[in-house]
């Protein structure tokens, strides 16, 4: 009878985490920040059709970094969750917190039970109304969930980008200032990112019921100038 090799659980988890981190680090990063009338999400993404940022519901947006097919599947699941919930109850009953929890549970489950962890990090952003504040939920590949009310950075190079955003961040800046700072933080000191290298969307009060709005190239170039 052959004995299976014993591998310590610590080693298994460490290997999986390393694998996921490597996968995420291969992709480009994403910054989400609040500004005076909304939330701006900026991702380094040269593609115009394979989105990292998408609409989930009236006041909720999704951001993903890492492996496209994996986070896109999670995005669609989020839209489905929100739409069925809003249809069964009411539009007001759809909130980011419950969706973020579902993502965290799912990612955590896959990380511990499946062969391969998902190589993604997820952002669920919710625009506050008068009473509730803006919420940014950052969910890591192993299901760790953190909530931020100022800004969030996702991706391989998160630590250095976080430092740069933190240094520039202001509570009452307008959209143009927030976008410029986010683009500079993503680029770093050695390069500049043009409008064509970025994917940008906002959740903004004043956009009507569906607050999600993509900011496309000609307008984005003006805002970054």
């Amino acid at each position, binding site marked *: 009878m052959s004995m299976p090799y014993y591998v310590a659980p610590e080693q298994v988890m460490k290997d999986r985490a390393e694998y996921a981190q490597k996968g995420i680090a291969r992709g480009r990063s994403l910054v989400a920040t609040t500004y005076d009338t909304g939330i701006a999400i900026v991702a380094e993404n040269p593609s115009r*059709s394979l*989105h990292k940022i*998408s*609409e*989930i519901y009236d006041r909720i947006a999704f951001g993903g970094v890492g492996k496209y097919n994996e986070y896109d*599947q*999670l995005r*669609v*699941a*989020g*839209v*489905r*969750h929100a*739409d*069925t*919930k*809003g*249809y*069964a109850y009411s539009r007001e009953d759809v909130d980011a917190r*419950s969706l973020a929890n*579902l*993502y965290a*549970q*799912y990612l955590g489950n896959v990380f511990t039970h499946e062969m391969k962890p998902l190589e993604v990090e997820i952002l669920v952003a919710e625009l506050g109304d008068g009473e509730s504040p803006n919420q940014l939920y950052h969910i890591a590949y192993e299901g760790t969930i953190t909530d931020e009310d100022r800004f969030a950075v996702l991706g391989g190079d998160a630590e250095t980008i976080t430092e740069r955003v933190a240094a520039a961040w202001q509570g009452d800046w307008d959209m143009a200032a927030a976008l410029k700072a986010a683009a500079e933080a993503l680029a770093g000191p050695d390069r500049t990112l043009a409008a064509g290298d970025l994917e940008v969307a906002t959740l903004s009060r004043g956009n009507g019921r*569906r607050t999600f709005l993509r900011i496309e190239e000609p307008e984005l170039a003006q805002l970054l100038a």
Partner: protein
Amino acid sequence: MALPLFPPESDPGPDFVGLLRMTAGRADPPARLEAGASVQVPHGTTVVALRYADGIVMAGDRRATAGNIIAHHAMEKVFPADRHSAVAIAGTAGMAVEMVRLFQVQLEHYEKVEGSVLSLEGKANQLAQMVRQHLPMAMQGLAVVPLFAGYDTARGVGRIFNYDVTGGHYEDTDFQATGSGGRDARNTIKLGWREGLSRDEAVDLAIQSLYEAADEDSATGGPDPVRGIYPLIAVVDAQGYQPVPEAEVAERFGALIAGKQAERAQ
């Protein structure tokens, strides 16, 4: 509630109705009625749509009837389907309103999942499928017949689609009306319609058609200045769905009635 994830071979795609079926979030259809039984449930009545130079105008009276009883004085029968289209309903009120709600979610769901908006034709076909699925209920007297119209952003024109209870849908190039007072309303529009109407002329024609329908059909509500209830009117053009403000509708009705009184006084 778990995260709604599906294996690739059974993924419902952008179909919201299919998703509801798979997640069992939708209640089963109500039990069959006994043969010959008739239920008195609220019915919505007259809705009209007509094309003008920049898009379409859609209007509906506000009355719902159950037999000879007026069930609601201020029912809404004209709804935005999405940014560039509108849907109006005639028939069993409860089911029609639910169908519209599902249709609205379906269009938005498709747009979010696919990342692109359905074509106007695609939206009209989606609604046809919903009406067709409702056919068993329609055969028992609980029919829903919508009217769908919108601005076709690809072609740059307003288009109108008319439905029957089997889900058959027919495109009408100029105007259409449905519901119990639909015939009178349609005849009124027929006499006043011409190519290239302005927005104001089209809104006035819609108002006149509902007035004439209410004059001939007891189930169609006319303007109600006592309660301040006027038909619901919406315009859809390249800018999207815009409801006509109630004050404007009231003013136009006032002008129509003043004109009629002046005619009689002569």
